[in-house]
């Protein structure tokens, strides 16, 4: 569009770099990037950043096509069919932990990893088998292809297929459904867990940031910002800003994410965890 660089002359700027960045993709990451972009533009008024959602799949395919500068994703590009990960450069900007959540009246607070797997593959169907109430288990899954689901299934299901069940595509809806449907179970990123739902411990490990940082809590993933090839100019500057302490120490925590700097381990695209 023709009107991107005509106006900003009046404001003082600490940088000469100008340009227009569009970042599209993961809805989970969107608020963080949006807020960071707002702060960033205060000092870089010649750089115009548009942040949009659309889903990780959209983010990855658009950045691969070159339609946008940055593709936000909850999963590794390698995990997504139809994406040529070699063309893309990964910038991990945060870590997010996920936990199984159940409706409060299920009466269960802790499960083993194996029990969890059996619930989601449809082998355990009543909470009383887990020491809870005599109530049918209603599994609420995330949409196929969602980053959260991919992470959850990689950590829990061990290659087995999930039972056919309800599916929802957003964290907010899942949270609402689990909190209002008796016997419901699903999983959420830590940031969406509140006191209306019960977050389960697994094998007596609590879902906390600390437990994620040393991989005691196994269900976690990175938030990625992908660029096509190495980022240049404005994009490079913005991504650098995302990784800076300004963002990592404050915004990331505010949003309920874990800073990559705090992690004691690292994970690769195949899910192998190694010490940092």
């Amino acid at each position, binding site marked *: 569009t023709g009107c991107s660089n005509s106006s900003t002359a009046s404001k003082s700027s600490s940088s000469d770099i100008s340009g227009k960045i569009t970042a599209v993709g993961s809805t989970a990451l969107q608020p963080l990037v949006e807020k960071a972009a707002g702060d960033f533009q205060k000092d870089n008024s010649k750089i115009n950043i548009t942040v949009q959602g659309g889903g990780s799949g959209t983010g990855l395919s658009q950045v691969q096509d070159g339609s946008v500068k940055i593709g936000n994703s909850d999963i590794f590009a390698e995990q997504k069919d139809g994406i040529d990960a070699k063309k893309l450069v990964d910038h991990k900007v945060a870590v997010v932990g996920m936990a199984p959540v159940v409706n409060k009246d299920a009466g269960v607070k802790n499960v083993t990893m194996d029990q969890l797997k059996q619930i989601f593959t449809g082998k355990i169907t009543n909470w009383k088998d887990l020491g809870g109430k005599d109530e049918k288990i209603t599994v609420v899954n995330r949409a*196929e292809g969602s980053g959260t689901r991919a992470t959850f299934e990689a950590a829990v299901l061990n290659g087995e297929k999930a039972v056919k069940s309800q599916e929802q*595509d957003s964290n907010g809806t899942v949270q609402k459904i689990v909190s209002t449907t008796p016997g419901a179970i699903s999983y959420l990123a830590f940031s969406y867990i509140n006191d209306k739902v019960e977050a389960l411990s697994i094998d007596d490990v609590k879902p906390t940031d600390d437990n994620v940082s040393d991989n005691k809590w196994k269900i976690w993933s990175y938030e990625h910002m992908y660029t096509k090839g190495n980022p240049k100019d404005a994009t490079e500057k913005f991504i650098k800003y995302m990784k800076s302490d300004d963002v990592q120490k404050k915004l990331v925590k505010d949003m309920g994410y874990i800073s990559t700097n705090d992690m004691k381990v690292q994970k690769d695209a195949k899910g192998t965890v190694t010490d940092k």
Partner: protein
Amino acid sequence: MDDIQTRLQKSSRATRQDYFGKVICYSCIGLIILLVACILYFIASKGLATFTQNGVKFWNFLTQSDWKPGDVDKYGNPQVGALPMIVTSFSVTILAALLATPFAIGAAIFMTEIANKKGAKFLQPVIELLVGIPSVVYGFIGLSLIVPFIRGIFGGTGFGILSGTLVLFVMVLPTITSLSVDSLKSVPMHYRQASLALGATRWQTIYKVILKAAAPGLLTAVIFGMARAFGEALAVQMVIGNAVLMPKNLISPASTLTSKLTTEIGNTVMGTLPNNALWSLALVLLFMSLLFNLIVRFIGRRGNIKNER
């Protein structure tokens, strides 16, 4: 010869105005046709790719009930079976229309034939107001009121076709009502006079004369209502359960074409089978609404008296 004679032969301002008007109108309709063609081409090219490029068999797509476009079954065929969603979409649309039509037409009759001016004046803006409530809001109200209500009465989770139908019922009610009001209003006053003068009661006049004369318009209203029900996603998605299962009853979780489409589209990569498969759903949607249209048109034409001028 004279002035008038030459003017008869020459074009005038009126001719130019008419030409101008025609150009405008034809270009507008042309633009719309172009747009429709574009969208159709776009959906068809993506939707058909599932069958042409990804080798899914069309018949399996229509008749199987496993939907996991990312995976293959034990014979190595992609699992792209849309039957449960087709059935569910049909069910909620038809049920919602069946439920809403009597209410909508009742309300429309009330507003045009029975109520005094004040009653109609009050009802009209209220009904139009409902059109503007975002789907999400309907969805959330459905989730917080209708789903627990159904759960309380019928047991189960409360998610399912019934909840979807009820939400859609409320959503299409204003559309059908206000379009019905328009078509009832356009029935000439003298029809009512003629019928009343013959000693027909108000109901006989409404039922046998007015509704009959307004039938095509009422059908159009219902079509638009069904179209809205059909294309609705965000609200239905929250209350129908979104499980790709053959609906066994009205209260088990199910999934419509649109809810599936909306849920998954952002998580798939353009050009891959999971993405194309979703566009195939959109294509089915398009065909279904075409079908509805043709059926209703057919009914409408039969109900109409011939050689009217």
